[in-house]
């Protein structure tokens, strides 16, 4: 029973915070009050989450699961959806990440947002987001997950468009919601397919019904259903082709970008696939598609990231790219690796976003990197924490990113679902990541000070912002130690265990074919070391190159831009994807609607009504024309009538 209470507290305390701030705070409370309230409820949630996860570790044997069923949500015919929430090893990680990172970001926001007019609203939205995210991760059936799924989308919509007086920002929010909706529509259909195949949408029940062997058919409900769910995931997690909303989503306040568009919400798609690993594992074709899409996204986003000037845009594309890694991991059946990277990425990307927030805050809302540079002496703490994030993302050991990314790369090479091409693409992506991230560092913190010193007085942020930065920096360093690969731990003195793997044991499924390869890892050890070295080496090389380009010889990039010309234009303009969508999908749709309205509604349907009316009126006019007023004409009608009737009667 207590567990139920704690689940309820975990879920509802952000909701309570949302309501308190939303209803009572508006226009009355300042940033500190409402921020304190919101942070308190986030912290409460984190505390209960921690308690629950602790409780989970106690449950050694049997299914490690803590669940609570509150009421029956929908009950119609064979469809039964209880409002049931669970904390199991998979969701436990997410719950901790969400509430933990969430709390930190709440804290950060107090400093970042307290001067904003709508700060109460801001905090209520943040709490609202937390609530929905928790529903998403703990929900024990697809529909409940979908509730959170759409709920976080809604929160994201509200927060992106937070400064709605600027129409562009409002538009960005709308774009995010609608793009997500496309994915959601597919998600719904996916749910239907699964429901009518399995007869239930509860995870555990589906798990028990999933066929043993892989389903090798494109048209089987399993493949189709998972594919559609994956399309849903591409919407939420910004993968090709639905990633376009995420860069625009940077219109929101920076902590929001950190929380929603880097750490938590955008990983929901990955989480969903991990959560349903037993299902996806049985659908290898889907996995293949996921891997391909993931790999493509990695490269595409990374290349775009090379040429952006907006610090947040760079981070956004990097997020897209990193999400691509997670999908790649899922695609090759390394669900654990995906979850691992999800977690580490949450740490270091949140860190980097917050760091950039700190920079932006310090620079009085300047986001263009061309007008930064040399900030490390103005923002020392920010710089150092950012440095940790940088090292993590480019995959330098022993930072968090190294372990998780390496796990993915290794799995994509070695797993039976994997292929060396995936590995190659992954390494390419890592190299590019390393380049543009170093570029970001170079442009922002190193080199010359390019900003106008008269107007800009860069200053370090308050402690409420720095504490989260530091905390996240620590996590970015140590976070990866939870999943140290066997090859490394063997050489390390203490032989630290792979905690994560142990934790997730039994909760995750490996692709059926992949299990066979696990044996004889000794043979693989050398290969693993080699590949690891290669990727780290390449990343280093790339980082050095970037350093050379942007610090040592700044004229090289300009030369390159001139040389590459169109290719650069293409990348700089994000491959014109937005323009293509606008031109070939949106504009024709609006045009078609206008035409339909003008032609079908107005010119055909209404016209038809008018034609009928006109026909009646025409008959009326004929009837009127008959009335000449002339007596003899009337008499003629009588005679004609008689004549005609007689003619018809006698059938002449």
């Amino acid at each position, binding site marked *: 029973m207590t567990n139920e209470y704690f689940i309820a507290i975990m879920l509802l305390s952000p909701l309570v915070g949302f309501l308190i701030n939303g209803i009572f705070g508006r226009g009355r409370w300042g940033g500190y009050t409402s921020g304190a309230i919101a942070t308190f409820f986030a912290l409460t949630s984190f505390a209960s989450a921690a308690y629950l996860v602790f409780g989970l570790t106690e449950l050694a044997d049997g299914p490690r699961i803590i669940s609570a069923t509150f009421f029956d949500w929908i009950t119609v015919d064979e469809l039964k959806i209880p409002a049931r929430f669970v904390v199991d090893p998979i969701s436990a990680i997410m719950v901790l990440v969400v509430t933990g990172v969430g709390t930190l970001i709440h804290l950060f926001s107090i400093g970042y947002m307290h001067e904003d007019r709508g700060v109460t609203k801001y905090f209520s939205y943040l709490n609202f987001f937390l609530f929905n995210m928790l529903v998403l991760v703990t929900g024990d059936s697809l529909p409940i997950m979908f509730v959170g799924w759409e709920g976080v989308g809604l929160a994201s919509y509200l927060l992106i468009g937070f400064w709605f007086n600027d129409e562009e920002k409002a538009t960005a929010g709308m774009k995010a919601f609608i793009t997500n909706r496309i994915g959601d529509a597919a998600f719904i259909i996916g749910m239907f397919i699964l429901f009518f195949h399995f007869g239930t949408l509860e995870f555990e029940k589906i798990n028990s019904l999933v066929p043993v062997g892989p389903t090798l058919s494109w048209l089987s409900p399993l493949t189709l259903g998972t594919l559609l769910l994956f399309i849903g995931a591409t919407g939420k997690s910004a993968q090709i082709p639905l990633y376009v909303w995420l860069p625009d989503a940077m219109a929101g306040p920076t902590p929001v970008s950190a929380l929603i568009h880097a750490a938590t919400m955008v990983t929901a798609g990955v989480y969903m696939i991990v959560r349903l690993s037993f299902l996806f594992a049985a659908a290898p074709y889907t996995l293949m598609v996921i891997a391909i899409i993931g790999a493509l996204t990695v490269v595409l986003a990374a290349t775009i990231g090379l040429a952006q000037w907006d610090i947040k845009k760079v981070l956004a594309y990097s997020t897209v790219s990193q999400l691509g890694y997670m999908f790649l991991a899922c695609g090759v059946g390394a669900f654990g690796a995906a979850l691992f990277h999800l977690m580490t990425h949450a740490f270091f990307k949140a860190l980097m976003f917050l760091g950039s927030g700190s920079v932006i805050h310090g620079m009085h809302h300047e986001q263009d990197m061309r007008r930064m540079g040399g900030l490390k002496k103005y923002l020392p703490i920010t710089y150092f924490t950012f440095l940790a994030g940088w090292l993590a993302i480019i995959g330098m050991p022993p930072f968090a990113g190294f372990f998780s990314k390496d796990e993915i790369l290794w799995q994509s090479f070695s797993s039976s679902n994997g292929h060396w091409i995936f590995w190659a693409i992954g390494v390419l992506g890592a190299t590019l990541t390393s380049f543009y991230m170093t570029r970001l560092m170079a442009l922002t913190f190193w080199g010359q000070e390019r900003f106008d010193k008269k107007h800009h007085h860069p200053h370090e942020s308050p402690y409420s912002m720095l504490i989260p930065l530091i905390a996240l920096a620590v996590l970015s360093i140590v976070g990866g130690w939870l999943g140290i690969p066997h090859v490394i731990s063997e050489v390390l003195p203490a032989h630290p265990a792979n905690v994560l793997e142990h934790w997730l044991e039994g909760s995750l499924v490996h692709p059926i074919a992949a299990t066979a390869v696990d044996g004889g890892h000794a043979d693989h050890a050398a290969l693993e070391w080699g590949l690891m070295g290669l990727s780290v080496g390449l990343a280093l090389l790339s980082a050095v190159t970037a350093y050379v380009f942007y610090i040592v010889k700044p004229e090289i990039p300009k030369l390159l831009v001139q040389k590459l010309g169109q290719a650069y234009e293409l990348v700089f303009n994000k491959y014109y994807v937005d323009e293509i969508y606008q031109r070939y999908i949106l504009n024709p749709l609006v045009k078609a609607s206008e035409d339909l309205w003008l032609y079908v509604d107005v010119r055909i349907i209404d016209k038809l*009504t008018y034609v009928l009316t006109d026909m009646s009126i025409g008959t009326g006019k004929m009837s009127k024309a008959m009335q000449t007023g002339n007596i003899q004409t009337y008499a003629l009608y009588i005679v004609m009538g008689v004549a005609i009737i007689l003619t018809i009667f006698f059938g002449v």
Partner: protein
Amino acid sequence: MLLSQIILFPLLAAIILLIFNSKSDLLKQAALGLSLAELLLGAKLFMAFDPSTASLQLTENYSWISQFGISYSIGVDGLSFWLVLLTVFIFPIAILGSWNSINKSQKGYYASLFVLQTAMIGTFLSIDAILFYLFWELSLVPMYFIIGIWGGARRIYATVKFFIYTMAGSILMLLAMIYLILMHKELMGSYSANLLDWYKMQIPFVGGVLLTPQTLMFFAFSIAFAIKTPAFPVHTWLPDAHVEAPTAGSVLLAAVMLKMGTYGFVRWVIPLFPQAAQYWAWLFMVIGVIGIIYGALMALVQTDIKKLVAYSSVSHMGYVLMGLFALNQMGVTGALYQMLNHGISTGALFFLVGMIYERTHTRQIAHYGGLAPFMPWYTIAFLIITLSSIAVPMTNGFIGEFLILMGSYKSNPVWAYFAVIGVVLGAAYMLWMVKKVFYGPTGKELSGHKDHLVDLSAREWIILSPFIVLVFWMGLRPNDFLNYSRHSLEHWVKNQSSYTLDVKK
């Protein structure tokens, strides 16, 4: 007698108002009081209703036109229960919504509203065909006046179009009803216009052949109901009527009157002509799908808020039609639920549009912009209702659309694939409108009205809060509502091809 009281009390109220001194300020209060009294009767019905049975309850039966077996026979079951409650619930709010906007001949206005209420409730409760037809047509008259007298600039065009469209459809229905009365005589040996008797008839049906009695009558009824619903090619009266009607008129039109059409399908068409309904279900699903997508596309390009909401109605009612003709329990449950949802969300939307119209006297989306800073609570209310309208989970809209789509998927996946496009488009047009109206810089046209842009008044809060409560209640605990209809719907679906209805003694 309870049902008769519910039907006839508003009529009595109308008469009371008519002999009221029209100069008196008490008129509005009296109207509100009377409608609240009716709401109390609704509450009594809520207490008296037994959700554990599928049979018809609280029936009353008095002989009326005995020579043709026509009787005053009414009853309620799970299919009509919520619609009746919706009607009694929405009227006091509608009266509150007309509080300041109706200044001309108030007496006639409130009397019309009450007559309308009688007609609507009567339509939902009638078990006799001719009685049903009587209420069905009667509902046209007050609505005709409400739009025609208290409406906007093109009100006469709109109201006449509304009247003629609906009447054209219902004439066919009347003929089919007469045919059924005669057929009952032929098959069963006595005249009867009682629906319960009709259910027992086996109406000849030959699949695919148009000129068989069942198919012909199926279409005769369907056309009448499709026009009222309104389904795709016969929907054009709706935008006009909505745009021109006064706020309460739009609300009642959307919230209750359109339901009369879909309720007709549930109560009359499908159980009476089961084979034809099954045979032609695909057609109506296609019409539903077209309605969903077409309505959404239309809404996407409207420049008038009310017209946008009106076209969104077309889209929403497309879902209902689709759910009904899925002919399985999920679809039909969803459809029934969606009827209520649409009543609540679109009703509330029209109220909201009316409120802003009272302040700015324009309905052009282009004239608005940046309202949110001036009217934050209004914006929140609008947003909540918008979310309900675009079926975000935890609001009522989601439950309805989810069940409908699921039911449709079960009966024919292809249409569900198409229908789901509407989910995306729905979000698109609503959010686009929200963006244009509330966000961005303040509209140029509004600069003169800034003094009027005050946030919600207490009266407006009273109007909106029930809707908001219901949006979440119905979204979070649908079973609280569905339990009242569950047995009826189960019975309806399970015994589709030989549907009969018992009377609970």
